């Protein structure tokens, strides 16, 4: 709590005001939004949420995971199976899903960090685990195997908060709550001791260890927090779409989508994932719309666009869109020496914290 208040005090009035206005707008949006806008906003908010969760691991602690679909899938299947087979409410299922994902993350983290596997090797290990699990679930008959797993849908128009059965409006507020939760957790980490340790590990692991940071333990914390948060996104997807296919939920392209969000927005920043999710979703929806309008129906165009956007962002805006935009809008935090630090960071290729 102290961390959040501190961060709030440090932020300039403009960014505080901007954040409040954005929150109020989002809270009242369903009053004016039609169904299309509402579903688009659900995609943006849920993407911002998972992007934020990934960002804690890579943006803060510098551990590149390319297998976050693993936690989405495990979380989704855990809560869905508990609901479908034992009629356990998703609110309890969520806790179990988080526990399962934290356990999985602990195993992966323990295996990897014990030997100091990092960078590319670590990324490949995360992909291997995600693919391994995907194929496993393809043959896991209890949850439908590759034929898919379906959750009971309730009669149209009813809204059952206890079992998360309802329409887009309910899931809109759920997604908003998740996005706010991830934002607060990130903000808290950014100002808290753990966050400073994470960034010390990211910037120079040897120096962090020399300064007395238990790097093994804090890297493990980072992957656990990130996986636990991502599990909730899985539960959200399971109950929003009411169907699960290993081929989709564990797919590597989902992991890539999760990675794209903070990279476009600004890796290691607080608002980057939110902006990245909005940019990515608007781009892909606009492309869908354009393609439909000119009557082209070719699979793969969307992913070519993802590729071009990813390449162009990495090449021309290695820090993402947000840091530059924040500077222009005057949203930067006034911290003694902050401007100088940001400049240093920009010049030596590190990610400034905004």
């Amino acid at each position: 709590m102290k961390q959040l208040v501190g961060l709030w005090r440090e932020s300039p009035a403009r960014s505080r005001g901007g954040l409040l206005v954005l929150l109020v707008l989002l809270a009242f949006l369903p009053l004016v939004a039609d169904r299309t806008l509402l579903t688009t906003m659900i995609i943006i908010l849920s993407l911002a949420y998972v992007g934020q969760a990934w960002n804690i691991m890579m943006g803060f602690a510098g551990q590149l995971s390319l297998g976050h679909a693993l936690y989405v899938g495990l979380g989704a299947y855990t809560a869905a199976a508990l609901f479908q087979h034992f009629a356990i409410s998703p609110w309890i299922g969520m806790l179990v899903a988080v526990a399962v994902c934290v356990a999985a993350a602990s195993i992966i983290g323990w295996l990897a960090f014990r030997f100091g596997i990092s960078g590319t090797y670590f990324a490949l290990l995360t992909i291997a685990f995600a693919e391994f699990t995907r194929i496993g679930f393809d043959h896991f008959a209890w949850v439908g195997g590759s034929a898919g797993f379906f959750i009971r849908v309730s009669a149209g128009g009813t809204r059952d908060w206890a079992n998360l059965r309802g329409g887009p409006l309910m899931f809109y507020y759920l997604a908003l709550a998740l996005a706010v939760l991830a934002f607060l957790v990130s903000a808290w980490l950014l100002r808290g001791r753990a966050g400073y340790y994470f960034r010390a590990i990211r910037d120079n692991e040897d120096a962090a260890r020399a300064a007395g940071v238990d790097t093994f333990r804090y890297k493990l914390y980072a992957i656990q927090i990130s996986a636990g948060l991502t599990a909730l996104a899985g539960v959200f997807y399971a109950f929003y779409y009411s169907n699960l296919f290993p081929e989709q939920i564990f797919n590597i392209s989902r992991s890539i989508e999760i990675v794209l969000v903070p990279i476009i927005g600004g890796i290691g920043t607080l608002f980057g994932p939110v902006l990245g999710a909005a940019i990515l979703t608007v781009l892909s929806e606009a492309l869908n719309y354009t393609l439909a309008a000119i009557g082209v129906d070719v699979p793969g165009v969307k992913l070519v666009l993802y590729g071009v956007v990813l390449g162009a962002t990495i090449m021309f805006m290695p820090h993402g869109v947000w840091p530059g935009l924040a500077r222009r809008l005057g949203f930067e935090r006034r911290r003694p020496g902050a401007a100088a630090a940001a400049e240093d960071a920009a010049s030596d290729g590190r990610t400034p914290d905004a």
Partner: protein
Amino acid sequence: MPVEAIVNIVISGLLTGLVYGLMALGLSVIYGVIRIVNFAHGEMMTMAMYATVMLFAAWGIDPLWLLAPVVLASFAFGYALQRVLINPFIDRPEHAQFMLLLAVALVLVNGLLIAFGPDARTVQVDYALDSFALGPLLVDKVRVICAVVALAVCSALFAVFRFTRFGKAIRACADNLLGAKVVGLDVPHLYALTFGLGSACVGAAGVLLAMLVDVTPNSGPGYTLLAFVIVIIGGLGSMVGALAGGILIGVSEAVAGLIITPSAKSMLSFGLLIAVLAFRPQGLLGRRP
């Protein structure tokens, strides 16, 4: 199950494994010298496979004649990719390089999807069903040819690194980059040559593999992962390790298809990878970094 059947399966896995090994060798060469992980490796191979399939369908030329032009084209593609896109990224953080190649992979795979559609395509040479009889064993002729060609290409690559001047220069860059710069080697050019050589390997592997299996655009990422699994098991940067890893994975896939189910065969490969990373992260034949 008769012993001959099992031996047959193991032999065919071993022969396919040599082609896998050639593919992985390309990845290993690139990583060993440039320290870049080519995340678009399988996609580049899929491109070579499509070139083979389309040229075969258009003119009916035996894929073995296509080896030279496809390898040359792959070399040129790799050279250009390194020169234009990757060289500016040499000093960037690892994750940035990774993302760049991921972007290339996405564009390639979906470019193929847009150009050729999602259907599986195949090359049917007229000796596809021939086989050699070795006592009670039957060995596919195509597989034997592919394995022999793969070995020949690998030997050629070893020879290039061992006996030519520029092979020596490339090894110098890998051993001591600063020293290589000091004595005046043109490092960007040598890096691009290396990337080209790695791409040539993967192009040759693509031509051969097109004779053995169907190709779809979406098989690209799977091959990338397969190549990673192989080089990590064998030891990233070790050329012999890549071949050994390829054979190991080829055999384990064939055996898994026999004793579990064919759709779960890559699960065994990923299981092997996880085991290797957990207990011997430098790979079976690699040195500790």
